[in-house]
């Protein structure tokens, strides 16, 4: 399983990539693998506000539905509509083409509470 070094992670299995005052987020390789074949995604609209640890969307595999929890608070700058049309990309490219949202940070200090790649790896090892 792949966990890029330059990303931050959450216990809800999302990844966060810093880009200046904003972040790009998605779900991790571990998340897509646990979910299995992903067939449906529901994301907020551009301009919507998201809140740290609150659900911002839904991802469904054949078997189950899961909420997506926002790793940060802020305003949605961009939405990756292509994964809504082709949700299977999340299984294939969880860190690349399957990014979900670009968010303008309301509280940049929230980034400090996210997990490093080592912390995340340890966490999923304990969990599984």
């Amino acid at each position, binding site marked *: 399983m792949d966990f890029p070094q330059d990303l931050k992670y959450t216990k809800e299995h999302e990844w966060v990539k810093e880009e200046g005052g904003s972040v790009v987020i998605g779900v991790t390789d571990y998340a897509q693998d646990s979910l*299995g*074949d992903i067939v*449906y995604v529901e994301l907020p609209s551009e301009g919507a506000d998201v809140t740290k640890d609150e659900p911002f969307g839904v991802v*469904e595999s*054949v078997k189950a539905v899961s909420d997506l929890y926002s790793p940060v608070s802020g305003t949605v700058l961009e939405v990756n509509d292509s994964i809504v049309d082709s949700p299977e990309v999340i299984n294939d490219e969880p860190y690349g083409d399957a990014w979900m949202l670009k968010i303008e940070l309301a509280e940049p200090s929230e980034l400090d509470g996210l997990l490093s790649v080592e912390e995340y790896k340890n966490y999923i090892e304990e969990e599984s």
Partner: protein
Amino acid sequence: MRATNELRRTPLYQVHKALGARIVDFAGWEMPVQYAGVMEEHKAVRSSCGIFDVSHMGEIEIAGPKAEQACNMVATNNAERLVDGKCQYTIICNESGMALDDTILYRINSEKFIFCVNASNVEKIYDWLCARVGQVASVIDRSSEYGLIAFQGPKARGVLADITEDDTSVIKGFHFAFVTLCGVEVMLSRTGYTGEDGFEIFCPAASTAKIWNALMQAGSDEGITPVGLGARDTLRLEMGYPLYGHELTEETTPVEAGLKRFISVDGGDYFGKEVIAGQLAGGTLRKLVGIEMIDKAIPRAGYPIMKDGVQVGEVTSGTFSPTLERPIAMAYLELPVSEPGTEVYINLRGKMRAARVAKLPFYRRSK
């Protein structure tokens, strides 16, 4: 007694581990839910062949001179219509006509029948049969003696022919025979839960892995694929087959579930017949239907179904159909809104999403 937290393993557990299956707790058993992935496994069964471990299912034997009479006292179909080597789908109901289990009944000979029952219901049905017909015939739980492999798909018959010298093509649908597969005598049944041609192979428990491995090897050129419970569910849902615990429960009758074809009116006076005959004559208040979505998202078991602001039913099973590439579901709906084409709303976690009643099955194999 078995500790309640102790999970049981089928004779194929190590085979699944070696294949890298994801194992889950299902009805008290450690079962493979998927190997390569639900979509891939599902498509393999529709286009080639898939092999399933369903050894968790139970086999309860009814034996003795009055075995047929005993079967007709407890199940809705008419066992008198069976001959040696024929089987039938039949439902065991309680006195109120509510389903205790849906089963396949096999007639080995006039004094020996076997009910193949759902894993979650083995003990319940064994106790029920002992109490209700234990004085009429012997009731023996043979579940631990059998492994059970389902081998399904358009290529299944050809692959199976490679590991036997018996002519298995003479076994028609809902018939079975005792044949020898790679040196092991098995009870081979032309039945399944996928909507494809295929077999269910009742093997001696100790030889189950041998037969699995022989089929895997014989089918490798055809792309034989091990299939977990995940795709077993999507396959049966496309066919509109009921799953006990969802479409059939102790709160539903087989008439509501649309299983009239498996209810005899001329056979025995089985438990629940009065209620069931009443429903056959007078109708039911609700009906099992198919659901397709107009809006996006997948309806799941337990979601309420609304019409004009009032709840008119509930989803019993829902998934994404790998063949149709869209969401499908089954649901109980009140009779006036159960006609195919009727538009309803599904309360999907608080959001109302448009859907419509659909004809079952969702899928039919090409002949």
